């Protein structure tokens, strides 16, 4: 009689071989396929009462060899241009219908829109932030200049939030899985921690009193700090929010709420960051 750990080992060995066979696929597709197959095996196992080693091996045999699955997965990349002739599609009509639907894969177009909106809004927000900081630091003693700073602050908040929401949506949709694979979550953790460290370093450099720094190069570097801090701070906030929320979502098998909470938390982090910046500038 096989123990559960022995059965797990057989399954893991199969999935490892599958992962290796899918080496040529883009990482996101590879991870998704392995996850799909893992879910399939788990589903099959849950339907077996007290599964034995031969049950598990039969289950894996029915799935096919990792090489067969890899062949089927790798075909489309090369097949897009030279798909083998299909007897049922001699006049090409069905293929044309599929091509049309492929060209109109609205999901990808929407992703690009979110990304474009995010980048544009982010650029406007950073521009307004720099403008606001400059006026706040240098010329902030006149009423109209102070008003201008507040307008800039408003622009930073509105466009910053739009940027954060759009970029979060774009990244979440690109991942396209509410319960993400462990690998992606790990990546978010790593990026978040690295970006956070850089942001803290930049913050340290920025805390130097810029007005005492004499040379032009030093002044330019000092003004570059808020931009770098904003960028790395945002990246850290977004990645760490994604990583922590998705870790919780994964462990709880919560699917639907993860995206909403991610966007909300990232937006709030950005708002706090923007307010801190604006107050610092004023």
């Amino acid at each position, binding site marked *: 009689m096989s123990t559960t750990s022995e059965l797990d080992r057989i399954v893991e060995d199969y999935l490892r071989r599958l992962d290796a066979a899918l080496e040529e696929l883009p990482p996101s597709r590879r991870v998704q396929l392995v996850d799909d197959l893992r879910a399939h095996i788990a589903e099959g196992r849950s339907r077996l009462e007290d599964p034995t080693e031969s049950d598990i091996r039969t289950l894996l045999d029915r799935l096919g060899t990792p090489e067969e699955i890899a062949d089927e*997965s790798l075909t489309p990349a090369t097949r897009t241009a030279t798909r083998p002739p299909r007897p*049922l599609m001699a006049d090409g009509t*069905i293929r044309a219908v599929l091509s049309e*639907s492929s060209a109109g894969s609205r999901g990808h177009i929407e992703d690009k829109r979110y990304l474009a909106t995010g980048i544009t809004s982010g650029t406007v927000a950073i521009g307004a932030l720099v403008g606001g900081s400059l006026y706040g630091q240098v010329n902030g003693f006149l009423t109209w200049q102070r008003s201008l700073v507040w307008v800039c602050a408003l622009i930073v908040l509105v466009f910053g939030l739009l940027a954060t929401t759009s970029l979060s949506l774009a990244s979440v949709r690109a991942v396209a899985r509410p*319960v993400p694979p462990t690998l992606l979550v790990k990546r978010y953790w790593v990026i978040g921690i690295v970006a956070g460290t850089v942001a803290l370093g930049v913050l340290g450099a920025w805390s130097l009193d810029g007005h005492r720094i004499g040379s032009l190069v030093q002044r330019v570097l000092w003004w570059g700090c808020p931009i770098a801090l904003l960028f790395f701070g945002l990246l850290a906030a977004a990645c760490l929010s994604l990583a922590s929320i998705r870790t919780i979502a994964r462990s709880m098998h919560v699917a639907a709420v993860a995206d909403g909470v991610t966007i909300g938390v990232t937006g709030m982090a950005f708002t706090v960051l923007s307010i801190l910046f604006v107050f610092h500038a004023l």
Partner: protein
Amino acid sequence: MVAGAPRNFLAQMRRGAIEFCVLALLEERPRYGFEIAKDLADADGLVTSEGTIYPLLARLRQDGVVETYWEESSQGPPRRYYRLTEDGKSALGAFVVQWRRFRDAVDGLMQGVKCV
């Protein structure tokens, strides 16, 4: 004509038709991967290696003919369900029209053939 031709033809035909069989299953109701693989395997062995259904599903999703959503399961982790999109319905409809014409044409020609 070689001896293995019918088998090759069937394999090719199966390969060409399989994605539409998936669309047909999804037209009935949304299903999750395990269900689709089982239904196809049960339908006269349309799929011999159940695992190969997942690359196909990924392709269909990439083509925009199916979309996915997650649903909680009482038996374990959430399941990824697949359902037809409007593009998928159109593709399936177009295939069915052509399939019927093809089937009728072949049936018409084969009617008088006596199997050995």
